[in-house]
């Protein structure tokens, strides 16, 4: 398969699949090297951008997905209103941002930072697929450790978790980690 054939095949697959498609699956289906798929998809992403199309090819983590372009939102939304339209609540966003930056993190640690019980919100975020249990802490009770999921990246339009902006730490505010150790 040459590059244009891979591009064409990937485009077709993403169109029919709708959901995000993992690069592993594409590699398996097309039986070509991962690197060649990546090259072809990157080229396809550029095609969409350069030709000023109504579709964008989004990349996050190891997945790809076709979406309608943001500038056409007001037209698209007259036809189709996704049910996640309203976005997350302040409390959910707060909890999610703590998890995103401090993952893997236990429920207790989240609650310590927020100063309030957060079980309900953590479960809601889990149901929404934005976070997942990534591991269990090797401590009494083996509490669950939470981390962000692939859907989290997609939800915020991040290519990878490294794209999270750096925390705006204050200069004289470096006590955080020391304090964590004390609490344990």
């Amino acid at each position, binding site marked *: 398969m040459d590059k244009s054939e891979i591009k064409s095949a990937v485009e077709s697959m993403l169109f029919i699949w709708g959901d995000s498609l993992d690069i592993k699956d594409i590699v398996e289906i097309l039986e070509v090297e991962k690197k060649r798929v990546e090259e072809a998809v990157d080229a396809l992403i550029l095609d969409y951008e350069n030709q000023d199309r109504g579709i964008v090819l989004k990349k996050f983590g190891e997945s790809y997905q076709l979406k309608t372009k943001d*500038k056409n939102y007001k037209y698209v939304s007259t036809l*189709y209103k996704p049910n996640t339209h309203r*976005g997350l609540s302040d409390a959910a966003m707060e909890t*999610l941002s703590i998890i995103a930056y401090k993952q893997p993190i236990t429920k207790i640690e989240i609650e310590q930072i*927020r*100063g*309030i019980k957060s079980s309900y919100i953590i479960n809601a975020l889990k149901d929404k697929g934005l976070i997942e249990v990534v591991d269990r802490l090797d401590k009494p009770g083996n509490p669950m450790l939470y981390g962000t999921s692939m859907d989290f990246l997609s939800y915020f*339009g991040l290519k990878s978790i490294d794209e999270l902006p750096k925390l705006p730490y204050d200069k004289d505010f470096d*006590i955080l980690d020391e304090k964590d150790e004390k609490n344990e």
Partner: protein
Amino acid sequence: MEYVVNLNKFQGPFDLLFQLIEDNEIDIYDIPISEVTQQYLGYLDQMVEYNMDLTSEFILMASTLIEIKSKMLLPSFKEKDEEDPRDNLVNRLLEYKLFKEVSEDFKDKERAELKFIPKPKEEIEYDEKLNEQVLFEEINVYDLMNSINSLLKRRKLEINRESPTFKFREDHYSVNKCIKIVKNILKEKNKVNLIDVFKIDFNKGFIIAIFLSILELSREKNVKILQDNLFGEIYLMSV
């Protein structure tokens, strides 16, 4: 200082404390603990008055504030670089503030990304077992109606709209009679094609009576109506 009662729903004690600090333009590194404690307690009183849920976290914070206040009132005889009793609280407040700000960034990102809409995933899996189930999914009355219409057409029994006159005849088949017929057929065979039932007598009155009797049987849950696919053959099954 006076406290302003704002019935916003606070996320927790930090949220409330933070609001107090912001509203009073207090330097977070030098919190006038006595005034803040007073305001905080005042707010809790208001919450009680308005019958709001006062969770234990709010009360814990109140006791923490009072503890810090009392520690600060005690004269210190120790060295000057002794830990300020407020330090722990300030650190936690700063950490909370940090994530509160970060979550605003997340909100912006979310808002931007929600404008890119993906197509919802469709059911495109093909599974033998799955198909088997679909085969016997129950169908609705309209499928039945379409079946009748196509049958009437096939037999050219459509009402002639050009001359809307009718001859009235005695019904040879009543619905009750047809219910018996259908029941008898189903006694012999567990599953029967609807067309085969109609084949007994291609008389319009009979077809209508059978149609009504099947609806009646279905309503009484004596008969199941099945269709293997859209516009496909319709089968009757005894329940």
